[in-house]
């Protein structure tokens, strides 16, 4: 049970971090006071890292769901108020962690809003360095899948992966040829990142179409990509990428669970047609706001069987 990690952080440190988060959000809303209070960004980052460790520990445990949700929601709350890194790639990774933890803490809608209002910094999508370009494209794709700011985000997420595939043949061999003693590790890193790219593509297709290559086995398809990505990390001992991959794997699974396609699949054909209509809303338009996911209360309502298969509009008596 991963509660031991939260106990190690200590109730005082956790409560202090929550108070500081509230203070900063209030200050931001009122546009007054200094940004940092009694607890510095460095201290808050330490608590967020500890909470993320608790999330990673709890996510694979049968009885760890509540601990994972609580720790993820607290970690997300901290990451949203501390300063983001200046370096574009570090900035994107920070946003990626923030968004993943938000989804796992049932705060996905807040993360979408935060990323719309304060997007990540522009990434080097056309960098001469192949690894820099791959990292940038995959971070951008995942952030867009997580933000889902209309169809444009999801179409651009797919475009990032397609662009990588087109450029791979030209750049990959040249990049590896320059790596000399680290070529093996760098090759495994690319293997991991390519699987993460494929996973982002699968999730994007499912989010928009409710199926992938005519199949509904999206969990298995995603699981296969993430398993291979994790194996690549382990072969090359890429600890940070391993952690991020585990976080993305659990987040992707949660997004499939949250998807309007997943939640309504078992109802009936009229509901399926309705879902196609609400998902398709705004397609081809710049500012359309379709619905891709159900919020936690909506999922709970459906899960409690208040809507019957025979009557999608009438609550069960």
């Amino acid at each position, binding site marked *: 049970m991963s509660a*031991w990690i939260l106990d190690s952080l200590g109730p005082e440190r956790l409560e202090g971090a929550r108070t500081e988060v509230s203070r900063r959000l209030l200050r931001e809303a009122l546009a007054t006071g200094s940004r940092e209070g009694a607890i510095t960004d460095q201290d808050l980052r330490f608590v967020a890292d*500890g909470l993320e460790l608790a999330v990673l520990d709890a996510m694979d445990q049968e009885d760890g769901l509540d601990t994972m949700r609580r720790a993820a929601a607290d970690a997300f709350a901290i990451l949203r108020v501390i300063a983001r890194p200046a370096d574009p790639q570090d900035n994107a990774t920070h946003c990626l962690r923030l968004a993943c933890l938000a989804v796992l803490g049932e705060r996905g809608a807040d993360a979408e809003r935060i990323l719309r209002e304060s997007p990540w910094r522009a990434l080097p999508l056309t960098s001469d360095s192949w690894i820099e370009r791959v990292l940038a494209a995959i971070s951008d794709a995942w952030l867009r899948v997580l933000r889902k700011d209309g169809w444009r985000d999801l179409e651009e997420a797919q475009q990032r992966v397609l662009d990588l595939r087109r450029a791979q043949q030209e750049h990959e061999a040249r990049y590896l040829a320059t790596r000399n003693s680290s070529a093996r590790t760098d090759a495994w890193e690319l293997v991991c990142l390519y699987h993460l790219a494929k996973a982002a593509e699968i999730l994007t297709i499912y989010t928009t179409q409710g199926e992938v290559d005519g199949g509904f086995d999206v969990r298995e398809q995603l699981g296969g990509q993430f398993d291979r990505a994790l194996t690549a990390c382990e072969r090359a001992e890429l600890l940070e990428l391993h952690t991020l991959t585990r976080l993305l794997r659990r987040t992707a699974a949660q997004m499939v669970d949250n998807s309007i396609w997943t939640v309504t699949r078992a109802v009936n054909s009229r509901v399926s047609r309705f879902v196609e209509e609400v998902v398709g809303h705004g397609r081809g338009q710049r500012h359309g706001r379709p619905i891709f996911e159900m919020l936690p209360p909506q999922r709970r309502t459906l899960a409690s069987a208040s809507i019957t298969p025979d009557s999608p509009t009438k609550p069960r008596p």
Partner: protein
Amino acid sequence: MYQEAVTHYLASGGKLMVLFGVLIRDTAPTDKDLQSRSAALARSIDAPTTAVLQAWYLPEPIDRWPRLAMGASP
């Protein structure tokens, strides 16, 4: 052991830990190799954090180490 280490690390606010460094060379042993590094570390870490530095001086030249590491005879 992992749980014990993480518990100490988190409960101390990231301070109760040991930095461990190993220098491996194919030269004659000398105290100077570690003196400047230990002096720099001593200025940048505070108790309860500690550092342990070790130097290993191997009798084989450095260009043979990859083959030795793969199991070749000295």
